[in-house]
């Protein structure tokens, strides 16, 4: 099962771009990388998923280098409402999906 490592917390200011990097050194060939966002007292919510290079959607971008041993979630121009915990997940063996790492607590300051 691929283990992930993320910074425990990050601070940013409104309007800035935030990059959160996740390390997953033992990622398997068929593993995808998925990021979830969780607000207090709510369930996690899917943000973005990728396999290699770059993926972009309406809320974020995901950058994955060629060796796939890390990935970076990029949030453009964050607002106060982006304050949340962000989890990086890497697919594991059948039956071990969606095992969360410790996550990164992002605080966006005015």
């Amino acid at each position: 099962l691929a283990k992930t490592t993320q910074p425990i917390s990050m601070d940013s200011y409104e309007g800035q771009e935030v990059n959160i990097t996740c390390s997953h050194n033992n990622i398997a060939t068929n593993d995808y990388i998925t990021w979830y966002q969780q607000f207090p007292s709510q369930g996690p919510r899917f943000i973005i998923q990728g396999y290699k290079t770059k993926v972009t959607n309406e809320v974020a971008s995901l950058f994955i280098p060629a060796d796939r041993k890390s990935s970076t979630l990029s949030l453009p121009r964050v607002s106060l409402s982006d304050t949340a915990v962000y989890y990086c997940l890497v697919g594991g063996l059948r039956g071990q999906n969606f095992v969360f790492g410790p996550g990164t607590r992002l605080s966006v300051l005015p």
Partner: protein
Amino acid sequence: DAMVIQNPRYQVTQFGKPVTLSCSQTLNHNVMYWYQQKSSQAPKLLFHYYDKDFNNEADTPDNFQSRRPNTSFCFLDIRSPGLGDAAMYLCATSRELGTNTEAFFGQGTRLTVV
């Protein structure tokens, strides 16, 4: 519209008194998961169902059981809740178990044990 619905949102139970938490889904997904999340911690996978096949995580206590009577519903039974079982319980679904699937989470049930 909510796609994964957990009831109730808040549950108070007595120490040692069995309690059942429920989850329903409108997505017709094959997989349903139960997670336990304690304060300031990441969600911890307890078990999941792929259709009717039950898969228990190795470190899930025997005190926790689950039932999935049909595709739409899944229940978490805590046979004898202890104070340490107070947590948010999250239900999630996914279409398949593949690494490229997306999980959909409910709002959670916050369990208090008194």
